[in-house]
C-alpha cells in the first residue's frame, strides 16, 4: 500500500470552531488532493496542490483553505466549521507527469462531524 496517512480519522467539533485535517505521504508524489464525500454524491474535489506552496481550488472550495509547506504534508483547514461541512474527507496523491505510474492513491478518510 502507498504511504499516505490522514489524521485524525474521526473528529467531532462545534460550529464556529477552526479545524485542521492533515494528509501525510511518504511517496514523494508531486500532486496532493482533498475531497469530501457525502451520501448520494461521489467524491467532490475541494483543493489540490501541484507542489510546495502551489495550490488550486476545486469545485467545492468555499469555506476551506489549504497549505503545503513541504512535499509530504497537505493540510485542509475549515476556518469556522459549519454543519454543512459534516462529511467524510479523503486525501489522494498522484506522482505527476513523467513519473511513470499514473495510479492515484487515497487515504483512509477522516469522518468529521460538526455539531
Amino acid at each position, binding site marked *: 500500500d502507498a504511504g499516505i496517512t490522514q489524521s485524525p480519522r474521526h473528529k467531532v467539533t462545534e460550529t464556529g470552531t477552526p479545524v485542521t485535517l492533515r494528509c501525510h505521504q511518504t511517496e514523494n508524489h508531486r500532486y496532493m488532493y482533498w475531497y469530501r464525500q457525502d451520501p448520494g454524491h461521489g467524491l467532490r474535489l475541494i483543493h489540490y496542490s501541484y507542489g510546495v506552496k502551489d495550490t488550486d481550488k476545486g469545485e467545492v472550495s468555499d469555506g476551506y483553505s489549504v497549505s503545503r509547506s513541504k512535499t509530504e504534508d497537505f493540510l485542509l483547514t475549515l476556518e469556522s466549521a459549519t454543519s454543512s461541512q459534516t462529511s467524510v474527507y479523503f486525501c*489522494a496523491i498522484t506522482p505527476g507527469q513523467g*513519473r511513470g505510474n499514473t495510479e492515484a492513491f487515497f487515504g483512509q478518510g477522516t469522518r468529521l462531524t460538526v455539531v
Partner: protein
Amino acid sequence: LAKTTQPISMDSYEGQEVNITCSHNNIATNDYITWYQQFPSQGPRFIIQGYKTKVTNEVASLFIPADRKSSTLSLPRVSLSDTAVYYCLVGDPWGGADGLTFGKGTHLIIQP
C-alpha cells in the same frame, strides 16, 4: 457538464461476468480512461486504465472502441466481495484536477 455518464446502479449474481459502460462523448485527444473501485468507509482504489483498444490486468478488462466515446469495464466471474461503487474517470492521469474528477459512480450489488 459532466464528463462521464454511467448507470447509477447494477445488480448481478456470483460467478457472472459484469460489464459497466461509461459514456464520455467529449473525451479529449490526450485523455485517458481510468476506473476506480470504492468499498464503504474506504478510499477509492485504482482498478485499470487505458487509452484505446483493450487493456487487461489480473482483476478486470477495459474495452475502448475506436472513437473512444465510451468504455466498458468488464469484471469476470464476480463474487460478493465485488459489491462496491465503481467510478469512471476521464482526463489527464498524471496530475491536476482534470484527471481526478469523480462522478457519482455505479453502485454494483452482487447477490448469491
